[in-house]
């Protein structure tokens, strides 16, 4: 029993120490000129959905929930955000080549259609990111239309 208490105490100390190791938050004060909403027409209804279902990991602004202030929650989250932004960052959409922008819009449609995105683990913690079929259609139609617009240019 004594050993058990010692282990518990050690774990508690480790837990307290890791609270001081905090990853930097993904929060940008300004909207970049490369933001997708600055370069293409994004209807408010679509922008709202992107905000609640995509932007936490795919933009320069994450909404941080309470568990993001407790370690190791923030670490896991920082990792997700880093990977998400590397694949697609709506805040820097304008830095991509036109070809890559088209590919991304196509990938958005297929990821939502195949239910790959938003991630299941994300939907578990974010009820509003569980998109209805109508909401999915809204995003997919917008992405398809934006992509087709390029091709007509």
């Amino acid at each position, binding site marked *: 029993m004594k050993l058990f208490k010692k282990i518990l105490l050690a774990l508690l100390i480790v837990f307290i120490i890791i609270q001081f190791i905090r990853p930097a938050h993904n929060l940008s004060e300004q909207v970049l000129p490369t933001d997708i909403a600055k370069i293409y027409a994004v209807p408010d209804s679509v922008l709202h959905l992107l905000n609640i279902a995509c932007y936490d990991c795919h933009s320069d602004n994450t909404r941080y929930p309470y568990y993001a202030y407790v370690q190791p929650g923030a670490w896991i989250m920082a990792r997700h955000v880093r990977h998400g932004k590397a694949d697609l960052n709506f805040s820097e959409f304008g830095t*991509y*080549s*036109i*070809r890559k922008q*088209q*590919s991304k819009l*196509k*990938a958005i449609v297929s990821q939502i259609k195949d239910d790959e995105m938003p991630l299941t683990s994300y939907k578990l913690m974010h009820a509003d990111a569980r998109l209805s079929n109508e909401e999915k259609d809204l995003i997919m139609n917008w992405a398809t239309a934006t992509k087709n617009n390029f091709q007509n240019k």
Partner: protein
Amino acid sequence: MKNIISALAIAAITFASCNSADKKNTDADVKVDSSATSMHTDIVQSQSESPIHGILTGYLQVKNALTNDNGNDAADGGKAISEAMAKLDKSSLSAAQAKAYNAVADDLKENAEHINENSGKIDHQREHFEMLSQDMYDLVKSFDKTQTLYKDFCPMANDKKGAFWISETKEIKNPYLGKKMPTCGEVKEEIK
């Protein structure tokens, strides 16, 4: 005793001379081999006159792997594309070539990486292959042709929206539908 020693000596000499004869043979073999290798290198070099040769080779590897429903080989081809891109000497490109290359480079790289990372998800590889084919078409059109290529189109691919690919053979082998429907498609353009 003397007899035995001389017999041994003779045996040893014979053995050694046989050995050296063998060695000569192997030396000759090695020489032949090395000349064959250098000839081979010459061939590779003459083919790689085009700066995008390595990228095209990787692309065709992906394409041929997908016609055989082989996700692992396709993944290797994706890696080959990334490596060829890293090796490409941009300073050797003309202004027009550099423009064509830069217009697709980030997309090409990402599609190649996705194909490399998804060896177990061939449908996902094929989605990226569709985008990769567009990039590749733009590239081969802007660079000097060292071999005849074909632009093939299949209306059934890509969720029946249709998709094309680049092939080194005139015969149709469909990379989108694979063994399920290997002959769907037709040659739309001969790129010479």
